[in-house]
């Protein structure tokens, strides 16, 4: 695979890679680093890429693994950073958006990731399944639960002004 082919085929995936990395790491700089690291890895294994039919799914899986490695390495640091980033974003967003974000943040991790990747970032079920290593049916169930929970929580907040 030439550099030109590599850029043409794989570079358009950088947005999805970045969004997934951000959702998993909650840090824009780390997400950017991950995307570049993954591209370097892909370039090193460019001969292996010829044999892979679904490159998008492969790239998503590699990105997810890179993020998990990063989380394992910098677990405590990331947690601190996550807290700061979320707080910063709440200040930047409008009150209503902040409210929905807050509700989503209270969801269990799997449900939070599923709803963010699907409803915010527009990932397909197949992509989410590859990214989270979960079967599509489980993703659908988690998504359904998460959506209903968000609605219920918002209903409560609007009804009681909580």
């Amino acid at each position, binding site marked *: 695979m030439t*550099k030109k082919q*590599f*850029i043409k085929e794989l*570079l358009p995936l*950088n*947005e999805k890679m*970045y*969004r997934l990395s*951000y959702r998993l790491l909650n840090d*824009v700089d780390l997400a*950017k680093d991950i*995307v*570049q690291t993954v*591209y*370097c890895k892909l*370039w*090193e294994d460019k001969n292996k890429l010829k044999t892979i039919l679904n490159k998008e799914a492969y790239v998503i899986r590699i990105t997810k693994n890179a993020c998990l490695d990063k989380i394992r390495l910098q677990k405590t640091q990331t947690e601190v950073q996550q807290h700061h980033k979320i707080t910063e*974003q709440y200040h*930047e*967003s*409008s009150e*209503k*958006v902040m*409210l*929905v*974000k807050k509700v989503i943040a209270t969801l269990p991790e799997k449900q939070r990731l599923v709803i*963010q990747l*699907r*409803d*915010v*970032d*527009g990932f*397909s079920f197949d992509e989410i399944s590859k990214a989270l290593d979960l079967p599509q049916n489980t*993703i*659908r*169930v*988690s*998504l*359904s639960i998460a*959506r*209903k929970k*968000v*609605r219920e929580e*918002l*209903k409560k907040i*609007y009804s009681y002004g909580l």
Partner: protein
Amino acid sequence: MDCNEKIESLLEKYYLGETSLEEEKKLKELLLTLPDDSKFELEKEMFSSYNQQEEELVVPSSLETDTISVISEQSDKKVKIRKLLWIPTTIAASWLLFMMFYKQPEKETLILAEIFNKEQEAYNTTKETLFYVSKVMNSELGKISRLDKMEQHLSPLSYLDRIDTHLKE
């Protein structure tokens, strides 16, 4: 089917996690065109929040160019290494070729000379060995002559064979 009915049926599927990406896009479009005080106010809020969250997470404009430069750097590094390896390889190959062609005649003479010396040596050794063998053979032949004497003494016994044949008859 009017707009509200359409939204209702899509929302039903949406909450069950059964909508496709296209249907969700359509649902978002329909909800965002509704006035704030509609019966789908909550869903409108949710979808407009998701929309805003999507817009908030801006992929850095430098990501693409940075990635391209990282890839280019890596591929250039490989070319550089290849080039660096090429220089000593070329030198080594040239030296080998030079040695092969330049040293060949000298080597040939050397081999011939070696062969010649070895032939002389072999000739002398063979001559010495044959001389030794003949000397040993001559001395040992004396011992073998006793066998002739023994044969002479045994010849009178040949009449026993004749007796044996007569007896069989």
